[in-house]
């Protein structure tokens, strides 16, 4: 409760109330350093909604959401199961409080579960008994790595982690990634934000499009490819909205 936490900070920036004072303070400070920073969270979340709805449309019924955070607004399981009730969703988060909260919310849902796991320990996730029990890896699965890989330092080799996570996926499975990216016009603000994140357990690492593409080995990009999150199959009703300054980049890719 004394250290700001990525999951709770994200919840607050989306307007949620499942967070503590430290989390709100951090987000407010971030907003001051980079006005419109919270917009990035909204855009990211909106993308999650659009991409999951799209995945359901193309036939995916199994989702592995890694770095799922606090499961409130715009949940993967709510979106997926609203479109296709038989959809199964397995949430993975590193924070025990987020996991406990998820578990409480998912009680009674036979097709949605949560486990505690660290994206850096890929094998422990993929071979976890709960994961193996809920998801059938002989059928396509969508692995969601939204807003999580930018918390993994280079030393942990995120591309290799992605490879490990996707190794046992069958062809026709999907991978979704959103990632914070350097924006030349905002480099000073981004540096300030990165410095602010150093005071939390999760350090922030911006990566370029090329670096993110390198994580997609063995996958082919789905149109429109690796773009700003707000440009990925945008909601036509939102076309008139002013574009936010700093948003992550996003891609949905299909396993060959």
């Amino acid at each position, binding site marked *: 409760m004394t250290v700001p936490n990525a999951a709770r900070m994200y919840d607050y920036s989306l307007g949620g109330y499942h967070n503590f004072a430290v989390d709100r303070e951090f987000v407010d400070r971030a907003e001051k350093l980079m006005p419109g920073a919270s917009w990035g969270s909204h855009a990211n979340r909106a993308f999650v909604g659009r991409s999951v709805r799209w995945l359901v449309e193309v036939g995916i019924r199994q989702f592995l959401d890694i770095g799922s955070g606090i499961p409130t607004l715009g949940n993967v399981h709510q979106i997926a199961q609203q479109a296709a009730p038989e959809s199964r969703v397995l949430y993975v988060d590193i924070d025990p409080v987020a996991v406990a909260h998820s578990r409480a919310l998912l009680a009674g849902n036979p097709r949605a579960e949560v486990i505690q796991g660290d994206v850096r320990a890929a094998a422990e996730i993929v071979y976890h008994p709960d994961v193996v029990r809920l998801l059938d890896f002989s059928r396509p699965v969508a692995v969601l790595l939204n807003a999580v890989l930018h918390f993994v330092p280079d030393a942990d080799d995120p591309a290799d982690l992605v490879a490990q996570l996707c190794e046992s996926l069958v062809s026709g499975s999907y991978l979704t990634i959103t990632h914070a990216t350097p924006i030349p016009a905002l480099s000073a603000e981004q540096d300030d934000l990165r410095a602010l994140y150093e005071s939390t357990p999760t350090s922030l690492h911006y990566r370029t499009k090329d670096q993110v593409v390198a994580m997609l080995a063995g996958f082919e990009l789905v149109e429109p490819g690796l773009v700003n999150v707000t440009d990925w199959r945008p*909601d036509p*009703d939102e076309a008139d*909205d002013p574009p936010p300054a700093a948003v992550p980049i996003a891609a949905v890719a299909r396993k060959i």
Partner: protein
Amino acid sequence: MEVSDRVTALAGLWARRLAGVTFVPDGRARTREMLANVLSRLVTALTTEPFDAGVGYQVGRDLVAGHVSSPQALGRTIDLLSGRLLADLAIDHPRAVDRLSDLLGELATGYTESLRDVVLAAAEEINQAERVAWRDQQHALHRRIQHALLHDPLTDLPNRAHLVRWLQDVLDGAAAGDRIGLCVIDLDRFTTIEDSLGGDRACQVLRLVANLLCRQANPYGHFLAHLGGDVFAIAVERTAEADAMVKAADRALRTLRDPVELNGHQIRLSASAGIVERPTAGTTAVDLVAAAHVSLKWAKRDQGGRWASFDHARHAHEARRHAITAAMPAALAGGEFTLAYQPLIRLADDALVGVEALARWRHPAFGPISPVQFISSAEDTGLIVPLGRALLEQACRQAVQWRQATGTSLVISVNLAVAQIRDPGAVHTILDVLAETGWPAELLQLEITESAIVSSDDESVDSPRALARCGVTLAIDDFGTGYSSLAYLAELPVHGVKLAARFLHGLDTATSTRRSNRTILPALITLSHQLGLSVTAEGIELPEQADHLRRLGCDLAQGYHFGRPADPDHITPLLTASGRPNRRYRC
């Protein structure tokens, strides 16, 4: 423009104003639909009679329920609706402005009350999640601690505490007639292996051993434990018979004998095992472990590389020996050690010339304890020195008493252990006792075994020499059975020899080989006499033996024939008041 189109347009604008200050998850289209619906209700309320401001309250609550739920969203909503609703939707009613104010006031109330409930519920949920996470963490920690308490850190096998618990559980749940077995395995010379391979490799060896034993134990469902260091244990419940444990131990020892591969080197191990197998009734976990360790000790003592089974008799014997040793100091302080006296007879005239004082101990619980047992225990613990002094004092006082009572002076012959002679204060102690008791040195004989004076140049000869100079008589006990060297017999400060009883064997056979005692005995007696040493024969049981020895010129004799070791009261009557021993002594 149609009313519905205006509503849709305003709803779209409203949705755009909300974007960025509140996250509505369902997509812009759905948001717009919801807001359009809300606008319709507001319009209806504005133009209906009677006017019900309460519609605004409900709208406020519904907005929050629809995920329009941030403070800024409320602000923008009121701002938008108060500024544009009437104009954009072309509401034309005389009281519209007032009514709209009322509705928006109610909307704000409904919105904030609902938001308050949402926030409180969310806070409770997150706090609950925090508590659950904390509790789970505590449980996980507790489990890890429990595991660590019960498992060896190196091999992760159950540890000693775990084994004891397992054994106790089996014993508690056992049916009548059940049996249980335990085998404790110890690697032979493991410290040598450790020294030559180093600590890290040694740990690897232990892990390898753990694996090997696991593979042995698991197929049979046996319980394998690592008791620490290089000691392991296999426990078996409901054993059919003693053999079951022997087989398990044998299998384990054989597996460990196969060369073990470590970093390209071949290592040869061997192990010893102690087995115990017994009925579950009447035993405890601690008993089992202790018994297995006792058997392990026996296996190790017997060269190692083998198993030994627990044996009650052997264990009882050793336990008794330990108990005796432990009881000795108190026994000495309590005066439990006494002397029995055996007559020494001069063969020439059957006269009683002396007595050998023999240590006796009657323990209150164990009963009479043989000197063979307690003397060696006393030597092991060093108690022989104070014990020896106490017994010497007792013997001298008794001798003085006899003299005072009967006027007769006997030679008192007392045994001296190696430790006593080697004790630097030996001479001083003995002379002290003589002075205190008033017994003359010339009437004291000390019997020393051959091993006590090994060579004439040793320091071990210093004390005997000094004692001899003071007038004390020294005799070699059990002569001819130890390390004596005839070469320097002449130079030792001794006055006599006592021939061991075994020299009497074979005397009665009609046929005899040249090497029989019939040949040796006379030679020994002649040799001793020629060296100026008196000869005492021990263990005379038959009159024929006495006669034979008398014929051979043996000086003194001792044995059951002449009298068993007895209390002083039995000796007293044998002494006369005339001051001389009986001429003819028969017992």
